[in-house]
């Protein structure tokens, strides 16, 4: 064998660090693009819902100056590159450990960052959501930074209790769901920003310039909705798979362990969000807050529960 496990593990670390560096550059490019839009009082072109619906693909609302558009394109290219580096880091990590690369907290974060990046790029290929880039990249960068500094664990074998094919299924589902929820949360947050400016009528005022550079509330809402209805069943599946694994491993499928509790809270908030979206008077802004609460619960489950609360999932390795 040319690459032994040690070399592969080091290679993986190298790729992850490179991904961080490239994401940082992508963040700069995206941020510069956003700043440029805010600085130049761009004319607002109302976008047509019907057109959006039929064409399905992107027109930016505000026509950014060409330098801004270039910066945005650079940001996206860098994001794709960083995503590929992240992917390489995850794959080599899996090869080094000889198992699926999600066996401890460090690896969860790597894969979740990957899932968020993938979800963003997938949406970008169909929707005018480049304005999300700066936020998604910032979140991913934060997560990866936390992974390499606080959570780093050397590649190695699984502890026996994790050695189950349910690890592959349950954790993969949870991570995929988390990645897509991230895009949903960014869309929801930006929807609230844009909505507030539109309601105050300040979209064209200097204060509202950032909001003006965003896609319309309609597009933002649709992207958020698509992300949520895609991620919610995946999250449901992750919870069910987790329950089956818990039954297999601990003899009870539900025990209100902190991790289980927060997965439940996340699920219930998103369920409330979907119901609110179908309720007159709650649709839009109010419903959005439930989605954000769900994402906050997801984040707390992912980081808070592992770091601060002891429970049966605490061996997940910090």
């Amino acid at each position, binding site marked *: 064998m040319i690459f032994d496990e040690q070399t592969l593990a080091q290679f993986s670390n190298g790729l992850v660090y490179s991904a961080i560096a490239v994401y940082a550059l992508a963040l700069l490019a995206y941020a510069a693009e956003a700043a440029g839009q805010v600085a130049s009082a761009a004319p607002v072109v109302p976008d047509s819902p019907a057109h959006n619906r039929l064409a399905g693909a992107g027109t930016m609302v505000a026509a950014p100056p060409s330098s801004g558009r270039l910066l945005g394109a650079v940001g996206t290219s860098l994001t794709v590159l960083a995503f590929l580096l992240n992917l390489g880091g995850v794959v080599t990590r899996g090869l080094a450990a000889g198992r699926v690369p999600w066996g401890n907290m460090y690896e969860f974060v790597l894969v979740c960052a990957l899932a968020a990046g993938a979800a963003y790029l997938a949406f970008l290929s169909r929707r005018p959501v480049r304005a999300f880039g700066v936020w998604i990249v910032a979140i991913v960068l934060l997560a990866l930074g936390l992974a390499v500094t606080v959570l780093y664990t050397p590649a190695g074998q699984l*502890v*026996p*209790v994790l050695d189950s094919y349910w690890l592959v299924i349950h954790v993969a589902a949870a991570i995929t769901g988390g990645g897509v929820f991230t895009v949903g949360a960014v869309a929801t947050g930006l929807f609230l920003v844009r909505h507030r400016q539109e309601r105050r009528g300040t979209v064209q005022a200097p204060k509202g310039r950032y909001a003006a550079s965003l896609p319309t509330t309609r597009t933002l809402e649709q992207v958020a909705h698509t992300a949520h209805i895609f991620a919610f069943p995946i999250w449901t599946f992750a919870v069910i798979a987790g329950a089956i694994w818990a039954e297999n491993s601990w003899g009870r499928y539900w025990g209100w362990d902190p991790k289980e509790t927060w997965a439940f809270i996340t699920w219930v908030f998103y369920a409330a969000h979907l119901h609110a979206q179908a309720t007159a008077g709650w649709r839009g802004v109010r419903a959005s807050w439930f989605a954000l609460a769900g994402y906050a619960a997801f984040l707390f489950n992912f980081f808070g529960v592992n770091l601060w609360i002891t429970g049966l999932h605490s*061996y997940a390795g910090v």
Partner: protein
Amino acid sequence: MRASRSRSRLPGLTCLIAVAVTTSACAGDRARTPTASDGVVEVIAAEDRRQVKPFTGELLDGGPFDSTDLDGQVIVYNVWGSWCAPCRTEAPVLKRVAEETRNLGVRFVGINVRDNNAAARAFEDSYGIEYPSITTDTSSDAVLAFGSALPPSAVPSTLVVDAQGRLAARIVGPTDRSTLSTIVTETAAERDPGQ
């Protein structure tokens, strides 16, 4: 993987058992006689009794035990351990009743559980227990044998088997002298067809 922090060897177990028994004893075929002691007493009418499975084991003094060797006799089985505090309060009671009913043909057999032989022998030595006990290592068959009628359910518990090999009474928790004496004497008296 971490062992549970507190293995309270059943503080308040008797209480828990009492609750459990209260809920499970609504079958109607067993008479429950609350007593002054902590134990929960169930005396079973002759026609409702069920057979206790035969079982074997080894005794603390080294010999073998086979429950079928005692066929035709009333036997009092006591489930105990040297670590068990209530077992200590009832040990003198058991010793006394065993001596008093020996002439009636009643035999006492201990079933030592979750213990080690040295500690168990030291316990018997302290309390002057004369009757034999099955060792912890070979106690599983004995413990499960009563499941076909009523299982012991707690440490201590006392099970009275009639001359036909059927469970006549169960005392979950420590017993007092008058209760045990009454039950054992009455069960022994059943053997006499004249009564």
